[in-house]
């Protein structure tokens, strides 16, 4: 199956341990207020408005669909600024084999790959196929997820996945609705399940004090994760909200200060977490 791929970063230092190729797929089922790459959320409606605006003619219409020529793109983001639907048209539809060909170019400089998004678990079959290819090439396999796919129902995917980096965006269902417009019932089920399987590589929370109960979220998340540390290390990444890339209507949130972030990190440690990182 072919999936919409937004971007492949050959060398990434920020998507898991060591040097990794990061694959970003398009499309997300959350609507996080603070999303810093909102253009990865929706799929193109083929309205064609961006095609006319592109200064490098890197976009064109074929059979009523917007197509992208990456070799002409200058990265000016005019298309993203033009789009009324919050969608990047710079998408290529690729299958697992084609994505793997682009990953292979970085071997042996990378220790693995991380698939992110958007929300990569919208395409579980693609993930499994890609990870099988990576495993055969001795590359590590991480995925970065909002936790809405019921991982327990996809044992074959989990078999070829080294670990999941899971967002816990808020602890209470009400807060989670405020942040994402979606319930977190499945997220928390996944957190328990992945941790019990030793597949929870990392949990992370973006800290936006005005939006949800940050202390409560960090406390409860840390307390739960800490119960599973005997299954393997779990890092808790506390992420500072930054307004870069955030949609105008949501870009007014206050950036938390370092002291508050430190307090939360200490809180996580006091709940039993040992590997806590502020970024």
């Amino acid at each position, binding site marked *: 199956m072919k999936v919409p791929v937004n971007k492949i970063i*050959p*060398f990434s*230092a*920020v998507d898991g*341990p*060591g*040097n990794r190729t990061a694959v970003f797929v398009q499309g997300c089922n959350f609507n996080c207020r603070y999303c810093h790459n909102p253009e990865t959320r929706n799929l193109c409606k083929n309205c064609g408005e961006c095609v006319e605006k592109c200064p490098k003619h890197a976009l064109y219409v074929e059979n009523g669909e917007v197509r992208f020529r990456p070799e002409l793109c200058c990265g000016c983001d005019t298309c993203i600024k033009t789009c009324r639907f919050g969608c990047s048209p710079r998408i290529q539809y690729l299958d697992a084999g084609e994505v793997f060909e682009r990953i292979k*170019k*970085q*071997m*042996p*400089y*990378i*220790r693995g790959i991380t698939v992110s998004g958007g929300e990569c678990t919208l395409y579980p079959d693609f993930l499994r196929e890609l990870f099988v290819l990576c495993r055969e090439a001795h590359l590590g396999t991480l995925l970065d997820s909002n936790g809405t796919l019921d991982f327990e129902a996809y044992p074959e995917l989990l078999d070829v996945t080294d670990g999941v980096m899971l967002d816990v965006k808020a602890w209470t269902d009400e807060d989670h609705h405020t942040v994402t417009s979606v319930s977190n019932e499945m997220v928390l089920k996944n957190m328990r399940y992945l941790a019990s399987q030793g597949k929870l590589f990392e949990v992370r929370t973006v800290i936006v004090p005005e939006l949800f109960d940050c202390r409560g979220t960090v406390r409860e998340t840390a307390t739960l994760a800490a119960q599973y540390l005997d299954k393997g290390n779990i890092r808790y990444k506390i992420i500072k909200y930054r307004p870069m890339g955030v949609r105008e209507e949501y870009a007014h949130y206050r950036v938390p200060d370092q002291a508050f972030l430190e307090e939360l990190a200490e809180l996580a440690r006091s709940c039993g977490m040992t590997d806590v990182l502020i*970024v």
Partner: protein
Amino acid sequence: MREIDMKRVNDTRDQMLATVKSPTLTHEQKVATMANLADSMLEVLDLPEGLDELMTDTIKTKCICDLAEGHAPLRPRYIIPDYGKFMREGSKFLQLEPPKDIYEAINSLLIFYKHVPSVTNFPVYVGALDELLEPFMDDVDEAQAKKLIKLFLTHMDRTILDSFSHANVGPVATKAGRLLLEAEAELEHAVPNVTMKYDEDLTSDEFALLGIKAALKSAKPSFANHKMFKSELNEDYVIASCYNGLKYGGGSYTLCRLILGNIAKRSKDLDDFFEHQLPYVCQVMADYMDSRIKFIVEESGFFENNFLAKEGFIHRDRFTAMFGMVGLAECVNYLMEMQGKTGRYGHDEEADALGVKIMDQIEAFNQAHVNPYCEVTGGHFLLHAQVGIDSDMGISPGTRIPIGEEPEELIDHLRHCEKFHKYFPSGTGDIFPIDTTVHKNNEFLLDIIKGSFREGIRYLSFYAADSDVIRITGYLVKRSEIEKLERGENVLQDTTALGMGAKHNSRIMERKVR
């Protein structure tokens, strides 16, 4: 000795007086400059025909450069003493017994360094400091050992006034090595330069990560592909000066360099370049190097009289010479333009293939040329990708991609390095400034080092984009010291002036940050 005319004598006298009166040179720098000026009036070498035209023109046309080695070499350019022997046996000439504890070891080494000549009058190699100090690590507790090592390094930084001075650590982790790396990270000195010999089968990740951490603080160590150097020069190689692979207990008589871009400019077309100009200039340079070596070995008396040779700290038959080159990028781009082609070095397959063809031809020339005093390297010189000098303008070091034209993705940059590092057993390297605000992940760099060395890259350097100590081309300078010199103040180390020149002429502050 040949006569010289009075005009040249008087010009030199003017330069000497200007040196005496210079407001920015330190006393030591004046003495060294005066000695070089005096030397420049000697005419004793048997110079090959054609050298004058190729070497004395301006930087825009000259094709051969001898990097200020002087007219009557009184010592080999780079000397690599066997410090291990000195630690085991002491020295009669220096009236030193073998050191018995860490205090004596450090004191003896600091004395020895003051008696190791080189082209800069400072030692270009100060030893495998981890190996040399490890036997003494149990003499004191760890805090004391660290303090002594920091004093040792600070002494070097303030008395070896030139950052072409190089220490080695690794490939195996030791306590002394760990303390050295920790000390370097804390001190942020420019001297000495440090290389970690790295072999993923011998070097622990923990030790390598300590090296990376130090590099992101103080622009050192760099990382040398131990497997690769060992396969070419055997186990007893060292990294000295900028990044030069040489034999322990030996060194290099001389280093001259081809300025490839200017050789391209002499050529009528591609055929002329490959058939006539490049072979001609290579031959003249090799003849010139032969002549310099002959003088050092047969006439200077260095190997008969210097205590380093007499006591066996160096051996004449472990010396070789370095056949250098700069500006492959400019050479390729010029030859491409000459054919009406737009492909650029570092970006275009045909341009890079042309670069490989040029290097293959230089390598073949070197393999065919025999010098009787380079037995240790099979009778041949070793190729060297020279890093440039402060007065170079529009000449990229060795085979590097010009600053400002680096590929967007680091992977493409590294793939390019892979094609060229293999040619240079006596040194090449690429440098990458790293944005440490983004990369709080040192294993990222470790993966890049591992991948690089598996793919045949020889030597890599990293520094944090915002650090004070930075790698200019092969040597280290503090930005804060360059700023002092720009304000007309004296600075301690002579390499600061070279760094300032490179900053102004070669855009070294504008490298692409990764």
